């Protein structure tokens, strides 16, 4: 305790130096906390967007369809049956169910053609699972049984469509014959999910089934639960009750690539933290060396009094821990303030991506609000102190191993 007390008192010798070194650590912690906070915010918003606009909490599909689902082929579709729907509705946390049919569309405005994803939606039940209707910026939802369509305002702008225009949709039926739907654009939406805005058209399910000649088949069921955390277990449990080839998939399965990307981002954040704290560690090394050089005669005296190298090293490590603690506290306070600002005001995604429309694969746009986790603060605080202490070991050893005579006479 005495050595620790002395170490902490030593921090008062050069207050400005102590504060500057601690500030470097605080800065590293601030950057980490903000980056991590924005990552948490982006992750939560991305997951919300995927759940609310793309995948729901669970999807039930033929497992053969699921594997090739991005190809939008009309193979391995499901014929809706009360038995399946009953099983789905018995799922723990079940709230709502809707049917969807995804298909490939070539969207034509008379001049240009663009491949997009068509989605046949059950207009009675879709809004119980998805929030698409809440993001209409113009017009209304289509009427059941009609050829009315809605699309992203961004896609409409790209294809030069206005509300009330007719879009020609070239489709291929199950028998590989071509067919068209002349869809009247009755609504434009602008969701926080960029790819939905740019490459999806939605129209009544019955119309789609008729034009694709698939009878009443659908590509998948989508389920809403009352808690997203139930999804993985619910998918597993439901799959065990469904007969082959049907299987339930959680939103995490649907967003597998995003989850992987977020994990990579997390590693990236850790690497950034490691780099910044390494720079901070250089500051600690510098401080310990300077302190040792300034206190050489004292070190000599300590050795003359019989202080062991280990005890001298502990004293310097105690000082470094003190700097780490001060930096940690400052960093956490600065981090809380920074996060509060980003949590209340948010940050425009465009600012982060240099003003462009790039989303770097994240299914989100608009303003991102930072999230926070207590664990992040604890982790980075402890990490900062540990890095400070570890950085001090080598210079402290160098100081402790000084020849006592040379140290006393500062030779």
């Amino acid at each position, binding site marked *: 305790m*005495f050595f620790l007390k*002395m170490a902490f*008192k*030593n921090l*008062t*010798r050069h207050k400005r130096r102590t504060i500057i070194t601690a500030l470097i650590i605080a800065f590293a912690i601030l950057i980490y906390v903000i980056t991590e906070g924005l990552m948490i915010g982006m992750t939560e918003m991305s997951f919300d967007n995927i759940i609310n606009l793309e995948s729901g909490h669970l999807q039930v599909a033929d497992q053969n369809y699921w594997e090739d689902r991005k190809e939008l082929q009309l193979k391995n579709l499901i014929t809706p049956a009360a038995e399946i729907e009953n099983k789905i509705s018995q799922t723990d946390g079940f709230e709502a169910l809707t049917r969807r049919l995804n298909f490939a569309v070539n969207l034509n405005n008379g001049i240009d053609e663009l491949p997009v994803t068509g989605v046949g939606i059950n207009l009675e039940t879709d809004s119980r699972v998805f929030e698409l209707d809440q993001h209409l910026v113009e017009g209304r939802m289509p009427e059941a049984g009609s050829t009315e369509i809605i699309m992203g305002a961004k896609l409409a702008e790209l294809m030069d469509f206005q509300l009330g225009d007719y879009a020609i949709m070239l489709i291929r039926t199950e028998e590989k014959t071509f067919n068209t739907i002349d869809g009247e654009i009755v609504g434009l939406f602008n969701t926080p999910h960029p790819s939905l805005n740019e490459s999806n058209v939605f129209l009544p399910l019955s119309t789609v089934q008729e034009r694709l000649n698939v009878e009443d088949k659908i590509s998948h069921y989508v389920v809403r639960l009352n808690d997203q955390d139930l999804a993985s277990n619910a998918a597993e449990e439901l799959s065990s009750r469904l007969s082959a080839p049907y299987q339930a998939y959680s939103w995490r399965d649907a967003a597998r690539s995003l989850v992987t990307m977020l994990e990579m981002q997390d590693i990236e954040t850790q690497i950034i933290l490691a780099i910044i704290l390494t720079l901070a560690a250089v500051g600690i090394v510098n401080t310990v060396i300077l302190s040792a050089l300034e206190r050489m*005669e*004292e070190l*000599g*005296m300590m*050795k*003359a*009094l*019989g*202080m*062991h*190298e280990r*005890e001298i090293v502990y004293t310097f490590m105690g000082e470094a821990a003190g700097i780490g603690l001060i930096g940690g506290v400052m960093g956490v306070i600065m981090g809380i303030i920074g996060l509060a600002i980003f949590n209340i005001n948010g940050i425009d995604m465009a600012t982060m991506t240099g003003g462009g429309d790039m989303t770097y694969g994240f299914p989100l746009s608009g303003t991102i609000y930072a999230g926070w986790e207590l664990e992040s603060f604890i982790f980075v605080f402890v990490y900062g102190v540990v890095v400070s202490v570890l950085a001090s070991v080598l210079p402290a050893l160098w100081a402790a191993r000084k020849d*006592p*005579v040379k140290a*006393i*006479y500062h030779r």
Partner: protein
Amino acid sequence: MSLIKLTGLEKIYQQGKIEVPALRGIDMEIESGEFTTIFGPSGSGKTTLLNMIGCLDKSTAGEIVFDGHSINDLNSKELAEVRRYNLGFVFQSYNLIPVLTAFENVEFAIRLIDKHSKKERRDKVMSLLEEVGLGDMADRRPNELSGGQKQRVAIARALIKEPKLVLADEPTANLDSETSKEVLELMKEMNEELNTTFIFSTHDPQVMDYARRLIEIKDGKISKDQRRD
């Protein structure tokens, strides 16, 4: 039995390719309770000799026996142990820790041997500070003390663990003559009261006046060894 016995002690420093002999065969014995001054011109080898006796430096040849044990073959950790329990040091420039109070500077030395309770430690430190005339300045930091007061703290620090030997390297070099006298009186008093052995290195005639034994070093050899009653 002598407290210190030096036999054929030699120390050669290597300066590049040149060998510089600092001690050239010192034979000497110091008894417990002696108040000895080692004097001689600058570069004569006084400080080197003091460092050897103080287990701070290793000899090139010869033997040092401290309290009946040869210290020649001890490693740096074992030498630190000898210093920790048996030796006290007083330096020319005091070498106090500026962030600690006078009390804490003295306490620091006794903390290293850690055999006292907190209360015992406190009482011991305060009693010694009072003995050196600094009882009312225990809470002052070194920058709030005069040179003489700092050296008194350093003496208290050297004596607090009741060492067998106190080595003082030019302890009055940074003090005026009046303060030097006070400090020397104090050390002599401690020597008589506690029977602690004191060895000084100096070229201050005032210090020599206080010594009961004078050892003169010239060119790394003892040129005179005189005892006074």
